[in-house]
């Protein structure tokens, strides 16, 4: 346990606390990126270089940016959350109950970690992992999980596009005067399958 690891861990935890407690959501997203970078640095010090760089690519590069985009699209960075002092009593009780449950979880986990004799043994020697090893393992032993993860990512991408697209297509058709009278007379919004709608908009169909 080197000093460097301790400092990285402290920075990571402080950034995580800031990401969960700051009032301005944009600041939350930025401190979240700092926290992810700290976790990546911890991975690097644990001899998991590939995972560390993947963490930077996926979390700092994609997830943090996605969170910033979601904050901007929902315009929640401008409005400030109600502070703890002005919120109601039930609200305060709920917050304290949540923090109490959290403290209980951490106490249990910490007690289990510190009292275990198995975990106190010194670790093995540092493994030499090259990217070639990872590729070989991924292409032989873990090839089926790899394909399934590819399928899941494709499904998630299509799903995210359809979920975020549908309402916009509907509201735009309601803006048109013709569409508005049609929906008003039939008393039912025009039902268009979302996938077909997207294809039409893209000019494919």
């Amino acid at each position, binding site marked *: 346990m080197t000093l460097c690891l301790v400092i990285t861990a402290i920075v990571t935890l402080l950034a*995580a606390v800031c990401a969960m407690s700051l009032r301005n959501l944009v600041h939350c997203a930025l401190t979240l990126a700092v926290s992810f970078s700290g976790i990546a640095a911890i*991975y690097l010090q644990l001899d998991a270089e590939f995972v560390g760089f993947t963490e930077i690519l996926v979390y700092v590069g994609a*997830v943090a940016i*996605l*969170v910033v985009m979601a904050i901007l699209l929902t315009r929640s960075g401008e409005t400030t959350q109600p502070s703890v002092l002005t919120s109601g009593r039930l609200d305060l009780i709920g917050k304290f109950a949540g923090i109490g449950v959290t403290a209980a*979880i951490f106490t249990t986990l910490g007690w289990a970690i510190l009292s275990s004799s198995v975990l*106190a*043994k010194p670790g093995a020697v540092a493994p030499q992992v090259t990217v070639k090893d990872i590729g070989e393992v991924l292409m032989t032993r873990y090839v089926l999980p790899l394909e399934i993860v590819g399928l899941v990512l494709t499904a998630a991408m299509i799903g995210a596009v359809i979920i*975020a697209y549908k309402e916009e297509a509907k509201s735009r058709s309601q803006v048109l005067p013709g569409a508005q009278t049609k929906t008003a007379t039939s008393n039912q919004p025009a039902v268009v399958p979302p996938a077909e709608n997207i294809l039409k908009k893209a000019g494919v169909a």
Partner: protein
Amino acid sequence: MSPLQFCLLVSALLFAIGFAGAVTRRHAILALVGIELMLNAANLNLIAFWRFGPHPELLTGFIFVLFSMALAAAEAAVGLALVIAIYRHKKTSNLDEVKELKG
């Protein structure tokens, strides 16, 4: 304290912070951020056990973390798309105001 215990303690603290945020904050995006922090804590656990375990050359925990990161990215994309869709529909992203399914 061995390095493994230190990593597990950091991970437990990170999990606790993420859990507290996911439970106490009202904003949907912050709840998702808390879930991401909890997932990262689990990944840190896996890496620590891989590094200090008896057989690091088998790369089991390492590969598990790679797959778990891919699933976490998919979860974040779908979750944030849902937040945006709910915002368009109801003009709010406060979790307490979205309660149509409450009995």
